[in-house]
């Protein structure tokens, strides 16, 4: 799960990680009030969306006066912000963070992530702050510091020193930096984060270490023990069909093709998308109904696929294991009767109770196209959408 910068900074504040003074605003007047409250100019007005690259897209602007704040906040609020992470469709900006300007002397990069290969927590830091870290890693790998921590032991003082000296920090900022790093690690562990990132972490002319930006992502599997974080969820940042699907425990991701598909199991669902593409069509979605799907879930899956107006045909691919083919077939029949499916549906079933499942489909009187195997199914649905 992702949250906004201003929400991440609330968490930073809770962990005594220094951040610039600032306030979130939902309208121009509120933005002006927030700026006035800071008591000095310039201030920075930052678009709040769940995507990086906001500065380059015109979503972060400096304001020198109250009138200036009105101008830039007016430009940013309501804009459709396009960055390299939003896709070409962009995101509508509904709120801005208004922050004090700082005298920046140096910009650093600092993040903490779980490393899947080593099962360690890794701290990544660089003197090349404020830039895209993937680019830094690719072009100047010597500028990247990585320190691995065994989560059973936790962060030690020497870990922090390794990072601090690796960044060539001046003597007077070593202490505030190491304090910040160990608090950031504590936050990472306490909330089951999948990423905490500060880019840039700045050192000011006054030799203060301050998190100018803040990005915090959470492990979805751990949200059951962080109910307070769930309050940060912003539905405006999610695809409406994906929100709808999540209410029925369906794993749905909207894509831009025209073949809707419903599959049990994530791996098979991905492979089904791939084979649709190879047959010359394009998948409209990823939809994993999971191992324990019932007729109601299948029905809702259908409804969600059909609410995507680009869908010209549907491929159902089920390998019955825990989800039996007869249960799936009943769901399909129920859904077809209720929602009045108006596009051709190709069904491919295999595995547990497949004969019973095929019988149910055959005797339903519905116009379903059956396929003998996966290749056959992909070709049939691709031929249909080509018209």
């Amino acid at each position, binding site marked *: 799960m992702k949250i906004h910068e201003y929400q991440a900074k609330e968490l930073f504040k809770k962990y005594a990680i220094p951040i610039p003074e600032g306030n979130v605003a939902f309208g121009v007047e509120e933005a002006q009030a927030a700026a006035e409250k800071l008591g000095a100019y310039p201030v920075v007005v930052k678009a709040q969306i769940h995507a990086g690259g906001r500065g380059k897209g015109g979503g972060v602007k400096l304001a020198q006066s109250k009138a200036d704040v009105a101008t830039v906040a007016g430009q940013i609020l309501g804009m459709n912000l396009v960055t390299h*992470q939003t896709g070409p469709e962009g995101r509508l900006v509904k709120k801005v963070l208004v922050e004090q300007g700082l005298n920046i002397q140096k910009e650093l990069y600092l993040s903490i992530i*779980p490393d*899947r*290969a080593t*099962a*360690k*927590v890794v701290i990544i830091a660089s003197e090349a702050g404020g830039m895209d870290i*993937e680019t830094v890693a*690719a072009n100047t790998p010597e500028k990247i510091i990585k320190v691995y921590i*065994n*989560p*059973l032991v936790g962060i030690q003082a020497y870990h922090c020193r390794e990072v601090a000296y690796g960044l060539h920090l001046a003597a007077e900022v070593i202490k505030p930096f190491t304090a910040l790093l160990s608090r950031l690690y504590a936050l990472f*562990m306490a909330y*089951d984060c*999948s990423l905490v990132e500060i880019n840039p972490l700045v050192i000011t002319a006054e030799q203060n270490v301050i998190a100018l930006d803040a990005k915090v992502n959470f*492990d*979805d*599997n*751990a949200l*059951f*023990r962080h109910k307070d974080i769930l309050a940060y969820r912003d539905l405006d940042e999610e695809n409406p069909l994906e929100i709808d699907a999540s209410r029925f425990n369906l*794993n749905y*991701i909207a*894509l831009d093709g025209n073949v809707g598909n419903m*599959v*049990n*199991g*994530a*791996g*098979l*669902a*991905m*492979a089904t*998308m*791939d*084979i*649709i*593409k*190879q047959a010359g069509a394009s*998948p409209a979605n*990823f939809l*994993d109904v999971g*191992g324990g799907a019932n007729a109601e879930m299948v029905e809702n899956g259908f409804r969600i696929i059909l609410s995507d107006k680009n869908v010209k045909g549907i491929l159902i691919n089920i*390998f*019955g*294991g*825990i989800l039996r083919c007869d249960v799936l077939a009943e769901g399909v029949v129920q859904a077809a009767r209720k929602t009045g499916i108006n596009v051709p549906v190709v069904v491919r079933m*295999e*595995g*547990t109770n497949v004969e019973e499942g095929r019988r149910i489909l055959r005797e339903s009187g519905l116009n379903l196209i059956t396929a003998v*195997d*996966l*290749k*056959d199914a*992909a070709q049939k649905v691709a031929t249909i959408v080509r018209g």
Partner: protein
Amino acid sequence: MSIFVNKNTRLLVQGITGKEGQFHTRQCVAYGTQVVAGVTPGKAGQKMDDVPVFNTVRDAVKATGANCSMIFVPPPFAADAIMEAADADIDLIVAITEGIPVMDMMRVKNFLSGRKSRLIGPNCPGIITPGECKIGIMPGPTHKPGGPIGVVSRSGTLTYEVVHQLTQQGIGQTTCIGIGGDPVNGTNFIDCLDAFQKDPQTSGIVMVGEIGGTAEEEAAAFIQQHVTKPVIGFIAGLTAPPGRRMGHAGAIISGSSGTGQGKIAAMKACGITVCENLGTLGELCVSVFGK
């Protein structure tokens, strides 16, 4: 022959009295697996069908000589269950549970280091040696006993699809293993490839990967150096958009890392035959492995 499990494996089931635990225990028993014990805290002395239930894994091992555990414990308590099994020196732990927090699995993985237990999963369908023993949730009849092909996969139903195509072509399997779709798991591709290479009955291997992480790239390098048996590789998720988690917690392209195209290129560079269209996998297996 087979790898990791066979007809002598003595299975205990953690979470045996739950709905899923019960259902799949019965399926395993029906397949011929020796299920000797169950563990549910607070239910010692009860029986699930004919299987005695114990409070702790240690009690179950002492009373029954169980050497393998299958875990159906819900996500919040699954890490604890895995560590309990490892602390009782169970040889093989098969964790079926989906949805365990990553941090819990990182702790488990570090806890396991230096211990004798092997972990398969979590978030996996389990392991089956066709005709001998099934430890997991896969449909038994899809498999064909007698070998000679070993299957290792990060997926569940996609593995069934692969095995189905092998069986349809008349090609049997020695052992099929789902190593799970989570970012941090126990047994990896390399462990299985190494074991298949050493198993005299296995003459070829099918390896099923997907986007996310670098496990397939590492496995490809291992195959080039250490595996003399023919390997067919498949990667799911070529059409997946970057930055999105595709159902499996581990299936995500991060920046330029973890793409299907990169994995396929790495496999080809290491001399692995890559199946580029899942619909033709069975035929490709016939041409590479023979009948």
